[in-house]
């Protein structure tokens, strides 16, 4: 019972249900008398809707009802809100065009919602949706961010298709540092658009009870309370207490399930109109079109160095593609979560970043695993590696010359790092990757007709999002604390309710380890509950690697209150002074004596308060806590990748991948390793296989299925070599930093640094598919002839 739980590789509590088919995902929920919704989506990237004819569809078998945009407008259903206000370089608010749940007169991307057909069965709804005849007048479309400003206006409110131009840093000082630099490294690249593709497609079931005058929405959400708040307060105008949002088992999110989507609103609203539950489940083709995408930056980046390789300044200019509408947190991703990370692990004293965010006729873009931080890391680490090559300095040595070593450290881009040890992760990664034998491996590869390259990425991320006051000053329209409740039952077992949401992260285990450790009880005595607004007091949800740092801390705060109250009860039972009571390993003891009460005895006394200090204390043992973090947390690490390139086919294989991360204190190393493996694979996917493509002329999504958009498969990635170093976070009681996104943040730069090394080229576009690499090799060999 007293084996340490923090740091233990405990097999997950949630696994049994997932391994036996007993998981309960949204699409597994079936409500009595439910109907099925199918959305009619725009086949055009940009068009005016001249007419929608629904008569034929209405007569199709099983059709219950069809709603179009006008029905929602007549019912005063609002548009989808954006949760973050960015103020532009001129002090003006960003352009926030309406984001209707069903199109109002115009469609702006392929997949935009035009109508919803509700029928008795899914087949009937889908059959009838094909009978809805929409008359469109096509308009010219733009999908490329770099061309958006001169394209046909997508929204009346933004005639130049620009949402904002935003900047951070002292431009004049940066320019003057560049003028004096002895060396400048410059890169221009695209950070490729990605489609998140959680394997569980989105789904939503709205239901309305006339008896209770209340709604329930089952939905694939990473943050059910945020979903409810946005939907009730800003879209449907419903009282919050009359809406319950349940996010049951959720099959992966990676950011794409943070947002309030049109489908969620429509099924909830429609359930009252029909007085029947309405269920919608996305198929994969719809998911490609309608789940928020990620990344999509066009960037010019420069690094100024002195003759010794010290970084003097960095200058970055990015155009970010927001897609056709502002998704829930779209505006803060290429700004607040991007430019603020451009210091990386280095003492670069001056940084300026300008971001132009544009609308295009593409699916809305929002946070996808890493969200801004992979893009920032790509900028910094591609620049650093390129500079090292240009200056003929070992890339590890160039990093050492510029590492931040004194903490706390105030960067020139707003963040203050509390702690870190970048030498520790770099040196450990060099060892673990067997860097010293790289040259030997390289000549072996060459003997086999293959090119081998090595690449580094020393990333940093800001997690534990976020101090609400700081976020608010930067434009957040929400708080970013977390809530937790610890309910001790009369017999001493514990149920913990958390506002964090687990969709693969294993909170039911990790959080239980924290609770059982703190209370000194067996982990089986603890249950973790999440994902239901009717059970959880409040929650901001799970994203930005925030769950353990913010959600975990809220639970710890509540546990501390439990122990404090328990001490009062124990003092009464033991006829001792409260100040003399110590709590240790499940026992309340009078210091220096053998007098004690077990945790269960105290809990029992709280609920059967026959002998109880009623004059001083309420009965019961149940505590809440809200925790608003004092700062972000700053996980960091070094990744080293070795690739092999087949010169005949251009095929790239990631032969070795080493990751050494500093996540602060680790609760369950097994779960942390799993998070790293998954993140690395998504990062390798970005570098080598995944690239969203639109046809420039028609605005059609070309990569609209798993046959065209290449998620990494088991054969595309190696087994990983990973390790950790630990500098505990200084401002939360667990010393934790978060680990969910690191892999996806650091891997793309490491892989591309390795590939460009192998090919001896300055830059190559992501995804560097075998075709891209083969073309490059052909051009190179022709150039030689």
């Amino acid at each position, binding site marked *: 019972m007293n084996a340490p739980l923090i740091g233990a590789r405990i*097999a*997950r509590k*949630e*696994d*049994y*249900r*997932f*391994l*036996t*088919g*007993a*998981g*309960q*995902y949204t*699409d*597994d929920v*079936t409500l009595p008398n439910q109907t099925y919704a199918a959305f009619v989506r725009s086949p055009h990237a940009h068009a005016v809707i001249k007419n929608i004819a629904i008569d034929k569809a209405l007569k199709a078998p099983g059709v219950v009802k069809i709603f179009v945009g006008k029905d929602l407008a007549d019912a005063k259903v609002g548009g989808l809100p954006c949760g973050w206000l960015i103020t532009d370089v001129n002090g003006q608010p960003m352009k926030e065009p309406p984001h209707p749940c069903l199109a109002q007169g115009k469609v702006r991307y392929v997949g935009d919602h035009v109508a919803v057909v509700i029928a008795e069965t899914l*087949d009937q709804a889908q059959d009838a949706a094909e009978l809805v005849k929409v008359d469109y007048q096509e308009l010219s479309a733009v999908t490329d961010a770099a061309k958006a400003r001169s394209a046909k206006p997508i929204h009346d409110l933004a005639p130049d298709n620009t949402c904002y131009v935003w900047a951070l840093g002292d431009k004049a000082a940066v320019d003057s540092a560049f003028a004096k630099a002895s060396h400048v490294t410059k890169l221009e690249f695209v950070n490729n658009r990605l489609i998140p*593709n*959680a*394997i*569980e*497609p989105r789904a939503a079931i709205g239901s309305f009870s006339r008896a209770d005058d209340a709604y329930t929405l089952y939905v694939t959400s990473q943050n059910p309370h945020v979903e409810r708040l946005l939907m009730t307060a800003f879209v449907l105008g419903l009282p919050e207490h009359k809406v319950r949002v349940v996010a049951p*088992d*959720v*099959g*992966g999110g*990676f950011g794409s399930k943070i947002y309030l989507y049109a489908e969620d609103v429509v099924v909830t609203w429609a359930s009252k109109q029909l007085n029947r539950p309405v269920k919608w489940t996305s*198929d*994969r*083709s719809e998911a490609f079109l309608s789940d928020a995408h990620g990344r999509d930056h066009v960037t010019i980046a420069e690094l100024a160095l002195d003759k010794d390789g010290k970084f003097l300044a960095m200058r970055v200019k990015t155009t970010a593609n927001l897609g056709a509408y502002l998704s829930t947190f779209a505006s803060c991703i290429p700004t607040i979560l991007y430019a603020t990370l451009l210091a990386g692990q280095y003492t670069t004293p001056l940084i300026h970043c300008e971001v132009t965010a544009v609308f295009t006729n593409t699916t809305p873009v929002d946070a996808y695993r890493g969200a801004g931080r992979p893009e920032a890391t790509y900028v910094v680490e591609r620049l650093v590696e390129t500079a090292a090559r240009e200056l003929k300095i070992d890339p590890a040595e160039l990093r050492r010359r510029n590492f931040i070593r004194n903490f706390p450290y105030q960067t020139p881009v707003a963040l203050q790092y509390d702690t870190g040890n970048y030498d520790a992760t770099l040196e450990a990664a060099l060892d673990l990757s067997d860097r010293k034998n790289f040259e030997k491996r390289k000549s072996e590869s060459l003997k086999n007709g293959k090119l081998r390259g090595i690449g580094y990425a020393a990333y940093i991320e800001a997690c534990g999002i976020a101090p609400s006051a700081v976020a608010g000053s930067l434009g957040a329209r929400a708080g970013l604390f977390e809530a937790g409740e610890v309910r001790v039952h009369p017999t001493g077992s514990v149920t913990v309710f958390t506002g964090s949401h687990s*969709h*693969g*992260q*294993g909170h039911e285990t990790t959080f239980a380890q924290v609770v059982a450790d703190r209370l000194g009880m067996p982990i089986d005595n603890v249950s973790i509950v999440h994902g239901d607004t009717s059970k959880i007091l409040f929650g901001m949800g799970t994203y930005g690697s925030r769950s353990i740092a913010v959600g975990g801390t809220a639970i710890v705060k509540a546990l501390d209150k439990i122990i404090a109250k328990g001490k009062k009860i124990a003092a009464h039972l033991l006829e001792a002074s409260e100040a003399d009571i110590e709590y240790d390993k499940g026992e309340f003891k009078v210091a220096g004596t053998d007098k004690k009460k077990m945790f269960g005895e105290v809990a029992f006394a709280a609920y059967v308060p026959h002998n109880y200090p009623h004059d001083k204390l309420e009965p019961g043992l149940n505590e809440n806590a809200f925790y608003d973090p004092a700062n972000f947390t700053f996980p960091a690490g070094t990744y080293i990748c070795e690739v092999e390139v087949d010169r005949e086919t251009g095929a790239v294989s990631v032969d070795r991948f080493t990751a050494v991360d500093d996540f602060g204190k680790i609760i369950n190393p*097994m*779960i942390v*390793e*799993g998070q790293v*493996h*998954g*993140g*690395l*694979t*998504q990062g390798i996917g970005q570098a080598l296989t995944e690239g969203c493509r639109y046809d420039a002329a028609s605005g059609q999504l070309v990569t609209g*299925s*798993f*046959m065209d958009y290449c*998620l*990494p*498969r*088991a*054969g595309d*990635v190696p*087994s*990983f070599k990973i390790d950790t170093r630990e500098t505990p976070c200084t401002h939360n009681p667990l010393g934790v930093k978060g680990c969910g996104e690191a*892999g996806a943040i650091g891997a793309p730069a490491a892989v591309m640094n390795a590939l460009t090394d192998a090919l001896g080229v300055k830059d190559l576009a992501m995804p560097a598919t075998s075709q891209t690499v083969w073309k490059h090799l052909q051009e190179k060999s022709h150039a030689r002839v």
Partner: protein
Amino acid sequence: MTLKVSMKVNGKAVSAEVEARTLLVTYIRENLRLTGTHVGCDTAQCGACTVLMNGKAIKSCSIVAMQAEGADIMTIEGVAKPDGTLHPMQAAFKENHGLQCGFCTPGMVMNALDFAKSHPNPSEQEVRESLEGNLCRCTGYHNIVKSIIAGAKAMNGKI
């Protein structure tokens, strides 16, 4: 028009009236309410719907229910022992943290059961090749590969 389709699922005789176009996975999920078999795509690429049909792993989204008339189907719900004890392959996934969100997991386990019958001691390379038809977005496959190697050894060629 509907027609009656009968088969054995997890050892039990079942039948239901379905349309000719009803997919086997829809039959399993909607008619039999065995929701452990998942649908992750619409192009037979992800493998979340994998079940055993007459002992062989198939994607239940790529055949219609009629084609399974009279077949012996095993879904994820039929893998553990009747008393609830995990099958060695399931146990290996748990031990090796071979799952995160759990959505692809049933398909991974069903595919691994078929693979392990003929590969009692597989190499990493063989396991990675066997996973060609199954996508996972969470685990990066590292621990799935470990799980299948361990599970296959524990099975020793027998389901």
